């Protein structure tokens, strides 16, 4: 689990560097989307830290929470697409891509 948490920490750090680069390049909207992506890694790290050692919780609770996010954001993406909301389509897609990456790195043994 430490390797997973270190991975999330690395993604947060590289995300922050990407935000700074995009802002310096004048890509303000893309920087906002990078903030969304980085925030997902931060949320996942917080959730993991909170649940992993919590009595009665543990790795399965973390995985369940991630799957809950996936269902909820998947619904939000569908809704945004249905209403032609270009900004929220990108936001929800970004969140789901980051979450898929997090889930792919979630330790196999803990699943």
């Amino acid at each position, binding site marked *: 689990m430490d390797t997973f948490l270190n991975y999330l920490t690395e993604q947060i750090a590289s995300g922050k560097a990407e935000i700074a680069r995009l802002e310096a*390049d*004048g*890509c*303000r*909207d*893309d920087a906002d*989307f990078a903030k969304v992506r980085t925030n997902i890694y931060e949320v996942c790290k917080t959730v993991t830290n909170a649940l992993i050692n919590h009595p009665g919780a543990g790795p399965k609770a973390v995985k369940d929470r991630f799957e809950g996010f996936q269902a909820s954001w998947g619904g939000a993406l569908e*809704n945004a697409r*249905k*209403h032609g*909301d*270009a*900004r929220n*389509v*990108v936001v929800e*897609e970004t969140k789901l891509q980051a979450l898929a990456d997090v889930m792919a790195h979630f330790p196999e043994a803990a699943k």
Partner: protein
Amino acid sequence: MTQGDALKIFKSLSDTSRLRIVQSLTKGEMYTELLAERLGLTPSTVSFHMKKLEDAGIAISRKEQYYTVYSLNRRLLEASLFDIAAADPEQVDEQQRREAEYRQKVIDTFFEYGKLKAIPVQRKKKLICYEVIAENFVPGKVYGEKALNDIIAPIHEDYCTIRRDMISEGILSRNGSEYVRIK
């Protein structure tokens, strides 16, 4: 062209990704996926930027089978910067402009895709939301209670509270089980 239009043009161009899109389009028409590939962006990000460019009148889109093909609005881009910068300021009262801005902010906060996310606690905000809901009723037309509920329920589940509040706020009038929008 108004100053508002000019502001939209400048705002939409003050982003490197959008400038790169415009630069690519100077070479000819392109569809979303091709632009995405060339610029290293996702197709949905390109669509988002294209919407901003279209809203500002800089780009034009047309459907071609499954693709959306974009091109530049040459007429606008060939206008001189002098002409755009010289756009007339809109004759809008400052107080009116602030009120319209506040109203839009409340609507954006409380509504999502036509649904009321929560009934505001503050009366001023609540009135704005109810006025938006009232736009679903034809002024002067008589609605039965069921017809009224059928219109409000898809907007917010607590249609009873909304119906009662709209009467007490003078947006709807009630006569027995008949309701009429009065403002």
